[in-house]
């Protein structure tokens, strides 16, 4: 038996490791060459995407929205500095305010007073700075802005708060609104989902005052106007707006109410028809693949599962089956109850008959 040559083994291991390192370096160089030779280890696809993004910066959807949306709502950081910022801009004009101060320096004391009243709320979150823009060529007068700002604040529930609105009359006329979330009754206005609430309120206020610019661009997400507005419904609403056809929102609560009462599919369909919603089964190659709902008047059919998870075909059938069983059980229970009552009445009559005096009993018995 030959002895194990440890030295040779070690040499072989070292050579193998060196060969592995050379191979790894070669592969890394090849990867780097393929990715374009940048300082980052990105793939070619990511690099091209970034290049395209840089080339089209400023031409994306937000930039085009500023040219078409009637009231484009934006929220700004650093709310505590919003007042001096809005005032200091060139050609800025005062629109309206509920505060005493005539300039940002005088108003600072009032903002600080609000912050002192609510020491547990961060200053930059208590004071909100947002701006609302008009599309180019559709400016509003100061009076219209004043009425609009009142309606907007009412829409977000900020009635009676300290606020200042300043106009920047540029190509895209816009108003900077700085308001405090400290309510007059001592509470603090909730800032949960405030971007969506502000966006919806911006369009609602315009709609209420008849200040919307005509066109398909008044796409309002309406996520909070209706509860549980799914992405599919929002996109369907947008498509309908672009087509110029009515967009029927389907309230999932309405379907749930009808489904609770239905114990057969026919009852379900009839109940939905009564509230203006049509239902049918989705078919593919002769097989039923799902359930579709349509608001009467709308063009699109929406899949049940995209309205709410509880309205998929399986869930709807399961619920109807459950209702049917509950109904059967209820009927069975009522039937048993009636039989029991009849039996009890019969027994009572027999007992009463047995207790009558002999002369009062019917003859022959």
């Amino acid at each position, binding site marked *: 038996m030959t002895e194990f040559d440890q030295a040779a083994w070690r040499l072989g291991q070292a050579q193998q490791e060196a060969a592995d390192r050379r191979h790894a370096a070669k592969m890394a160089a090849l990867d780097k060459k393929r990715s374009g030779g940048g300082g980052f280890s990105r793939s070619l696809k990511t690099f091209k995407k970034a290049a395209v993004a840089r080339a089209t910066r400023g031409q994306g959807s937000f930039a085009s929205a500023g040219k078409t949306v009637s009231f484009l709502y934006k929220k700004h950081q650093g709310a505590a500095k919003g007042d001096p910022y809005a005032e200091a801009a060139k050609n800025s004009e005062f629109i309206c305010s509920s505060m*005493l101060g*005539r300039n940002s320096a005088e108003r600072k004391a009032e903002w600080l007073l609000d912050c*002192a*009243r609510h020491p547990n709320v961060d200053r930059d979150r208590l004071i909100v700075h947002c701006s609302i823009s008009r599309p180019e060529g559709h400016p509003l007068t100061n009076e219209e802005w004043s009425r609009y700002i009142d309606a907007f604040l009412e829409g977000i529930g900020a009635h009676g708060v300290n606020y200042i609105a300043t106009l920047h009359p540029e190509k895209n006329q816009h108003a900077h609104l700085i308001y405090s979330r400290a309510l007059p009754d001592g509470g603090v206005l909730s800032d949960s989902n405030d971007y969506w609430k502000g966006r919806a309120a911006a369009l609602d206020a315009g709609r209420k005052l008849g200040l919307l610019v005509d066109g398909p661009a008044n796409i309002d997400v309406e996520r909070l106007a209706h509860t549980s507005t799914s992405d599919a419904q929002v996109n369907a609403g947008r498509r309908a707006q672009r087509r110029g056809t009515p967009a029927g929102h389907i309230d999932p609560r309405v379907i749930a109410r009808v489904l609770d009462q239905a114990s057969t599919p026919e009852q379900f369909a009839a109940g939905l028809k009564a509230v203006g919603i049509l239902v049918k089964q989705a078919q593919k190659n002769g097989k039923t693949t799902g359930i579709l709902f349509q608001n009467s008047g709308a063009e699109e059919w929406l899949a049940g599962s995209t309205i709410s998870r509880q309205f998929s075909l399986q869930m709807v059938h399961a619920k109807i089956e459950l209702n049917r069983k509950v109904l059967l059980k209820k009927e069975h229970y009522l039937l048993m109850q009636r039989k029991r009552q009849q039996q009890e009445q019969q027994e009572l009559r027999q007992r009463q008959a047995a207790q009558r005096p002999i002369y009062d009993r019917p003859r022959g018995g």
Partner: protein
Amino acid sequence: MNDLEGQTVKKLTVRVPISTYLLLDDLARRSRQAIAVVARDLLVGRAPKVAPPLEKELSLEARLLLKILHGASSNLTQTSAHAAAAGEPLARLSTPDGVLFKLGSKVIKIALQIKSGQLDSTKTAELFARLEAPARRLNDELALPLNERSAPSMDAWKSVLEDLQNALLEGAE
């Protein structure tokens, strides 16, 4: 407590008499902080800040006076704009050194004092009694006619502004 020297204490339970607890509770309510936060501040030698009163916590006179001051401030701003547009000699009144700007600053100062609870009820009642009439004169005899494009006379300007100035100056003392 001597055992705790040099150590960082994260949680400490302290028993206090009920009277002390009630005082702490009152202080916590007025500074709108939790009672534990107030107690901790006191232990480390920091005096908790009493938060300014909410509008609903102000007295009736204070709220009425605030309403008057808001109106007066707004009227003074409008009047200043009209004076500036009217040219000399009225434009001099609307400069930062002019009487309209100074009156406006005085009004704002008093309103902020009321809102932050620095004026007691006696002073507030006194100010309310002094300012009610001059503020109404400012509104009826200067601001409204100017809005309706009818120019009051120089005497009316002088009389109204002097009236308001006297009331505010008396109130300042």
